[in-house]
C-alpha cells in the first residue's frame, strides 16, 4: 500500500504550477466536490432506505422525494415493540452466534492441522467447492431431511444449515492466517516439550488472534445475511430478520416505513462491523481463497 503512495507522489507532474490562480483554486474545489457528489449518489440507495425509516406515512408518499422532514421513531416503535420483530432479531443473533461458535470450535484445529500438513489439497479443494456451492442445491435436500427429522422451525435445523458455509469458510480463512505463522515456532515449541495440541493452543493461537477475530466477524455477518436457508427451514418460531422482511410486503397496504425500519436494523450492524474488518474484506468475500495482503 505505502509503496504505491510513494510512487504516485514522486511521479513528475507536468501540470504543476507554483502560482495559485483563481482557476486553479476552482479546479481544486471541483476535485473535492465531484468525487463527494458521486459518492453520495452512489450511496443514495442506502441513504434513502434509512431516511424512509424515519418518515411518517405522509412524508413517504409525498409527490416529490423529500430529504427534509420531521423525523419520527414511530416506525421503529411499531415494528419492534408493537409487532414482534424483536423476536426475529433475537433469532438472527442466536443462530449467528451458535453457528459461529461451532464453526470456530471445530474448524480452528482442522485449519491449523491442514496448514501444517504437506498433503490435504483434496480436502481444501472440496472445501472451496462447498464454499461456492449454490445454496439452492442444498436447500432441497436439507428441507426434505429437516422435514423428515422434525427439525424444521428449530434453531438446530437452521444452525446445521448455516454450518454448511460457516465451517468451510472458517477452515479456508484460518488456514491462511496459520500459514503466515512460521513453522519454526512450532518446531521450537515441540523442542520445549509441547505436543501438537499444546503447540496449537498455547503457542500458535495467541499469534493468530486478530485473524480469529476477523474470521468470527465474517461468520457472524454471513449467518446474519443469509436468506434462502432461513426462508425454507424456519417457521413462526425461528424466523430470522431477512425472512421477516418480505412477509411485511403485501399487495394490500404495505407499511413501507416499518419495512424500512426493519431493513435498517438488519443492515446497520453489518455495515458498522464492516469497518472493523475492512483490511480482510477481500479475503472475507472470497471465502478466504484470496488474501489481498
Amino acid at each position, binding site marked *: 500500500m505505502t509503496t504505491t503512495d510513494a510512487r504516485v507522489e514522486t511521479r513528475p507532474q507536468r501540470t504543476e504550477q507554483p502560482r495559485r490562480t483563481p482557476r486553479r483554486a476552482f479546479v481544486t474545489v471541483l476535485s473535492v466536490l465531484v468525487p463527494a457528489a458521486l459518492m453520495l449518489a452512489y450511496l443514495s*440507495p442506502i441513504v434513502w432506505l434509512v431516511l424512509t425509516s424515519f418518515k411518517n406515512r405522509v412524508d413517504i408518499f409525498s409527490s416529490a422525494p423529500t430529504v427534509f422532514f420531521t423525523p419520527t421513531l414511530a416506525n421503529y416503535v411499531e415494528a419492534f415493540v408493537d409487532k414482534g420483530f424483536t423476536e426475529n432479531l433475537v433469532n438472527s443473533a442466536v443462530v449467528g452466534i451458535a453457528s459461529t461458535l461451532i464453526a470456530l470450535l471445530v474448524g480452528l484445529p482442522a485449519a491449523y492441522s491442514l496448514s501444517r500438513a504437506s498433503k490435504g489439497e483434496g480436502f481444501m479443494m472440496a472445501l472451496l467447492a462447498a464454499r461456492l456451492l449454490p445454496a439452492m442445491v442444498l436447500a432441497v435436500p436439507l428441507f426434505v431431511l429437516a422435514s423428515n427429522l422434525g427439525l424444521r422451525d428449530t434453531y438446530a435445523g437452521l444452525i446445521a444449515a448455516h454450518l454448511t458455509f460457516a465451517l468451510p469458510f472458517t477452515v479456508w480463512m484460518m488456514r491462511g492466517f496459520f500459514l503466515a505463522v512460521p513453522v519454526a515456532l512450532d518446531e521450537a515449541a515441540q523442542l520445549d516439550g509441547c505436543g501438537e495440541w499444546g503447540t496449537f493452543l498455547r503457542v500458535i493461537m495467541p499469534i493468530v488472534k486478530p485473524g480469529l477475530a476477523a474470521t468470527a466477524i465474517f461468520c457472524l455477518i454471513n449467518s446474519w445475511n443469509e436468506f434462502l436457508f432461513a426462508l425454507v427451514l424456519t417457521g413462526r418460531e425461528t424466523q430470522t430478520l431477512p425472512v421477516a422482511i418480505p412477509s411485511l410486503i403485501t399487495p394490500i397496504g404495505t407499511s413501507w416505513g416499518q419495512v424500512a425500519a426493519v431493513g435498517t436494523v438488519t443492515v446497520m450492524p453489518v455495515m458498522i462491523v464492516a469497518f472493523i474488518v475492512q483490511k480482510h474484506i477481500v479475503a472475507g468475500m472470497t471465502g478466504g481463497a484470496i488474501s489481498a495482503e
Partner: protein
Amino acid sequence: MRWARIGMQAPSLVILMLVLAFPLVYSLLLSFQSYSPVDPAADGRWIGLDNYARMFTDTQFGQAILVTLGYVVLAVALETLLGLVLGIWLSRLVRTRRLMTSLLLLPMIATPLVVGLMFSFGLNPQFGYMTSALQSLGLIGEAGVLDSPVGAFAALVVMDVWEWTPFIALMVLAGLSAAPEAQIQAAQLDGCSTFQIYWHVMLPMIRPVIGVAILFRATEAIRMFDQVYILTGGGPGSATTVNDIFQYRVSFTAFDMSYGATLGIATFAVVVTLTWVLFRYLNRRGAA
C-alpha cells in the same frame, strides 16, 4: 503425531459429512426419483433419468438459463470495466483512499436481501427517488421501471453492478499495490505516458488478479437469489426469472422436490467445473 492430526481434523470432517456430503448424496438419489410431499402419486418411485430428460426439454428452464447467462455476462462485464477504472482511481488517491474504500465496500457487505429492498424503495413507482429522477428525464412512464421486462432486467443488472463493482476495484487495487516497481520506473524512464504505463505495463501484471475476480463474480452471480426475490420476484413474466428463482419455484412453490434436486445437481456440476478452473488459476498464482 498421527493421532493428534486425526483428532484435529476429524470433527470438521464428521460435521461436513453430515451437513454437506450426506444432503448432496441424498439430493443425487432424489434426482432419480419422483418425489413430492404434496402429491401422493409422487411417492419416491425410482424413475431413472426421467428428471434429467425432462430438464433438457423444459423450455421454461431453458428460458431461465438464458436470463441467467445474459445477466451474468452483462453484469460481470460491466463490473470488470468499471471496477478497473475505479481501482486505478483508488490507487491514485493518497489521503482519501481509506475513506473512499470504506464507503465503497458498504454495498457488498450489506445483507443481500436488504440490497434488493433498497432498490425496491428507490424504484417504487409511487415514492421511489430513482423513479422520479428517471421520470423527470422522460425515460420511463407512470408504471415505473419494474413494470416492463426490459426495465426489470436492466434494474437487476444495475443493482448487481452497484453491489459488486467495488469488489473488482478492491482486487485491482490490491494487484496494483503488489505490482513490482522496477518495470514501472523503467517504463517511465523510457518516456511512456501515464496511460501507456497502465495499458502496457500494469494491466498485464494484474491480469491474473482480474481473472480470479471475474471467476469469483461469475460463480456468485450464477446463484443470485435474495435480491431478485424481493425486487422483482422473477417477473414481469419470466423476464428476471434467473436460475435460482426458477429452482425455488419448482422446489418450494410447486413442491416438485425431485425435479428441483435434478436442477440443483446440474447447477452443481457447472459450479464445480468453474471452481476447478478457479483452483488451477489460484495454484498457478501460488496464492491459494
